[in-house]
């Protein structure tokens, strides 16, 4: 039995998500002056500091002529993924009070948070890469369409992993701690400060199972004209992301009773 028309439901869905994004923005960044500016400054300064440290110890860029661009493609990609995963993991608990308004559902709060994180990283990346280009530390992306696709794929993987985490964490609190331990090594195995293609074959065989590494490689393929990654398989992170999102959403539906 269908009681409300599809266009009506769609407009309700959009309205609820848009309101939640605005509320979440206000709640996350609105408490301190220049709140949203900090969300952009913190990661930017973080990457800048790392580039500075590596350049004073005299490190050469592993690829291309810009240390900054090489690190940024690694660190910003991983950060975007990590932020999605972290912020989404706690979303069901954090927004419990909101569910008192019956037209807001768990999945709405999940989508709203994901949209906010993605929008923040669009701004961060645009600001950072534009600054690099303006400072002559990078040239315009060689394949801009691949930069966009890599961003979308990172969003999908982060959303999938975050949704799955949110469901697991809602059933088992300890998972939030375990997830932190599990994702910590990503910094070292995602090709952030080395070129994965230059590693010995045994290492490559192992690392290619890490979907985040493919995303980093994808971003670099988008920025450099001749990155020629030996590992990049664009379908791998996309399928892993889609698969996790599917399992996560199915889990949300399946265990919905258990959360109340």
């Amino acid at each position, binding site marked *: *039995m269908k*009681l*409300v028309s599809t266009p009506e439901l769609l407009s*309700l869905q959009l*309205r*609820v998500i*848009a*309101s*939640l994004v*605005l*509320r979440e923005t*206000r*709640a996350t960044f*609105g*408490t301190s002056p220049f709140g949203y500016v900090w969300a952009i400054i913190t990661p930017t300064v973080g990457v800048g500091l790392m580039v500075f440290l590596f350049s004073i110890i005299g490190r050469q860029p592993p690829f291309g002529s810009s240390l900054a661009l090489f690190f940024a493609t690694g660190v910003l990609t991983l950060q975007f993924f990590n932020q999605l995963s972290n912020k989404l993991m706690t979303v069901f608990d954090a927004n419990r*009070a*909101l*569910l*008192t*308004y*019956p*037209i*807001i559902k768990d999945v709405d709060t999940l989508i709203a948070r994901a949209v906010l994180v993605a929008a923040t990283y669009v701004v961060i990346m645009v600001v950072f890469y534009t600054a690099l280009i303006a400072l002559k530390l990078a040239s315009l992306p060689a394949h801009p369409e691949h930069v966009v696709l890599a961003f979308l794929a990172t969003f999908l993987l982060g959303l999938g992993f975050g949704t799955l985490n949110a469901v697991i964490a809602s059933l088992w609190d300890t998972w939030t701690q375990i997830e932190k331990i599990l994702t910590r090594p990503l910094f070292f195995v995602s090709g952030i400060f080395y070129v994965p293609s230059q590693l010995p074959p045994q290492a490559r065989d192992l690392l290619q199972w890490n979907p985040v590494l493919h995303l980093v490689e994808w971003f670099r393929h988008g920025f450099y004209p001749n990155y020629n990654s030996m590992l990049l398989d664009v379908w791998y992170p996309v399928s892993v992301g889609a698969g996790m999102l599917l399992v996560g959403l199915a889990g949300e539906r399946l265990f*919905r*009773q258990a959360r*109340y």
Partner: protein
Amino acid sequence: MLVFDRVSKYYRVGGVKKTILSDFSFAFPPDRNVGIMGKNGAGKSTMMRLMAGIEPPTLGNIFRTSRVSWPLGFSGGFNGSMTGIENIRFVSRIYGQDPARVISYVTEFAELGPSLRLPIKTYSSGMKARLAFGLSMAIDFDVYLIDEVTAVGDEDFKKKSKAVFKDKLARSQIIMISHSPSTIAQYCDCGLLLEGSRIRFFDRTDDLLLAYKELNA
């Protein structure tokens, strides 16, 4: 339309199964105000949460075509670090209302003055209740769900609330939980009595109140 179709609801807490509703079917009569009575723990509030759609039933379906409010008088959905105005704006948006209209209505109704521009966490519980009541009255629902609260605040505010409430009743329906026979008698014209194992419908409030009295005797 608000229909419960073979609805069961139970919770499992620490291996113990607690049944609230089992195989309950009921069509809430439109254009009538329904009182819900029963002892503490009989499942009145859970039933209301099911009506509102806050919680899903364990088994069965609940069909809802009318605009049903959130359980009224409730203030837990407010975000403490956001101001009164910001909270009003948020609720107006999700319900597709014009925020400016709702803000001006609540400003006039709740009489909170400049406090509306302060974070909710600075409010007293009375102020919060006035805001919540004003907000729910500003949005037009077909069915208002009321859990124990009919009037909050001082005498003046109570009078005002009652007047607005009476006005609402001309166009909307209410479903109300209360332990107070006089409140039920004042607002409702039929009712449900939750007795743990069974639920009885009474076509007249008098019969409901009588059965409720016997239950407590």
